């Protein structure tokens, strides 16, 4: 028994064992740092790629808006009142005079008023992003509590 205890003690106190412990510790730190660096690099690269995509899409949106405006104006030129009148006349239509018009009652007819060109409704203020993408844990907790408390 005493012999066994002495042997274990010798092994524990061996210098190479202490060195290995140190090397293991250093390697562990290095591996941890490498992992952190790797994660950081990966996130940074992904953020960079997504950022580039955003920049590209923003530029594309701008180009498309420009193109839309251009096409809208071209369309307006093609359907200008002079052109439409000329095309109508070419098709055999003639301007109508008041006495040629017959008025009939159409139930439910709504008189034409000012055009509505709005593209968003007045209550369309809800963000397209889900709350998960911008709210903090505390915000989430507050929201959940508010929902739970609400009657």
């Amino acid at each position, binding site marked *: 028994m005493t012999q066994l205890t002495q042997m274990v003690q010798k092994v524990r106190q061996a210098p190479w064992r202490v*060195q290995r412990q140190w090397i293991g510790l250093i390697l562990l730190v290095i591996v941890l740092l490498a992992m952190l660096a790797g994660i950081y690099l990966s996130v940074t690269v992904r953020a960079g790629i997504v950022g580039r995509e955003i920049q590209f899409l923003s530029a594309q949106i701008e180009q498309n808006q420009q193109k839309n405006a251009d096409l*809208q104006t071209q369309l*307006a*030129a093609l359907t200008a009142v002079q052109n439409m009148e000329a095309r109508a006349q070419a098709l055999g239509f003639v301007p109508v005079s008041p006495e040629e018009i017959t008025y009939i009652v159409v139930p439910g007819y709504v008189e034409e008023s000012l055009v509505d*060109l709005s593209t968003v409704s007045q209550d369309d203020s809800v963000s397209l992003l889900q709350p998960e993408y911008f709210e903090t844990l505390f915000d989430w907790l507050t929201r959940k509590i508010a929902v739970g408390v609400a009657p």
Partner: protein
Amino acid sequence: MRPSLNWRYLTVASLLGLVAVAVLMQIVRIQTDPEVRELIGRSDLVVRYYYPPRGEIYDRHGHLLAGNITVYEITVSLADMTDPQAIALAMQTYIGKDFDTTLKLLTNPPAGASYIRLADYVSAEQATALMEVQKQMDADPRGNPLAALGFRAHLGRSYPEGTLAANVLGFVARNEQGYFGVEGRYSNQLAGVPVALLVPTDPRRALETPHISPGTSLILTLDRDLQAAVEEILQQAILENDAESGTIIVMNPRTGEILAMATTPQFDPNNYTAVDEVFTGSTPYNRAISQDYEPGSIMKILTMAAALDSGVVTPGTIFLDTGVINVGGEYIYNWDGGAWGYQDMTGCLAHSLNVCLAWVATQLDTDLFYTYMQRFGIGHPTGIDLAGEMTGRLKIPGDADWFPVDLGTNSFGQGVSVTPIQMVMAASALANDGKMMYPRVVAATLQNGRQTNMAPQVAGTPVSAATARTLSEMLAYALDTEALRALVPGYRVAGKTGTAQIPTRYGYDPELTNASFIGWGPVDDPQFLVYVWIEKPRSSPWGSVVAAPVFRQVVEKTVVVMGIPPDSVRAQLAGR
């Protein structure tokens, strides 16, 4: 462990330690070195100028009246330029730029310049043609001589309807500034807010790039089809009557919305550089708001309205017209110099008797007459939302150039100047149960996809509803008996002709006149108010001959475009 192994471990550890120290030192150096910091800073943020697209302008039904098209800016990079002559030649051939001027600019660039702008607002067709040539020259083994040319697409103003409503719209010059009309009045709102921003080039900070809202779009009260029809009628009237110019305004008297506003000379805002050639001398851009004149007999409706409202006269009041009246020591005569005998007030209006209306004004008393004129907005700008409105002139007692006779002459539209839009606003009170409406051209604004409609605004109530209805009936009766050319089959309208002499430096012009007509209908439910002014017609001097038929033509178009059924149909519908 063996000693040799121990030594090797130490060596490796020392080397790694040295590398780590070197890395740390480099990190510190990058963070602190001013040269490196400047380099990082320069590439991290760049200044970008954002010019939001100019808002569009629509008519009340959503037809585009002013939009944007793609145009190009052509630049040359001096560092990359190898053949200035080839560039100058290409600019001359495809863009129309003078060869010598371009070459001089390229060979003697401003000091410190790295880029030169050769042309801007180049049409897409021209720019595309030049881009094609540039692309083809890439195959040149000696190098592309046009490689230094750069093209930047941006938006420029365009008016797809050409001259239609140009006097109302105004125009936008190359400096992106709006002039006259809606473009001038709402230039800042239409243009949006140009901004210069420091924008990060780091893609990870892409979301920091700000969103720039485009300019506000406008929806006008104008009806494109009615505007086109009215412009055509006006051109025809000027031609047929050999007149100098003309103006027609169609308004909804209930809301003050201008449905059509036509005037001369017409102008294509796409070619705005011709503005000085078209509007020579003192010619206003829009006579409807910027040219005052003596309105003549159409002013009588305001005098009579004031007298009826104050109770000085009733429609049945009888006046003995002897053909002359003395006001302030001066004699006033009728338009024909004749005496019309006993006349009631409707007869005075029907025959447009100056003597009678001068008498009515004297019965009103000076102060009350001018109080009513001011209530009708005479002498004040209407506040219409168009750039360049004139005030007109109403002399009042106390002014150095006011004389007692002015009370008499002002009553039938002499010695007082108004703009067409002032007369329209004043008459809106008579067509709208006494409520005078502010005239307006913009019906709604459109910002970030949200439309905000403008509410009609009452400018005042110069006369009571009962007075307005009584006068409308009197004028409708007067038209039925005396101005047959203005009558519109199926529709009962109220109105008044005007034949105004034109003041010159040496008194009134003996030959030329201003022929005008103002009227509204249907009398029982006025939905339109039409004003016609034909300036200096040579076919006939009379408003009843020149302007009344134009009024009828405009009303015939208006009822069709607005879908207003004849009186009999409306009565049937109301009876159901």
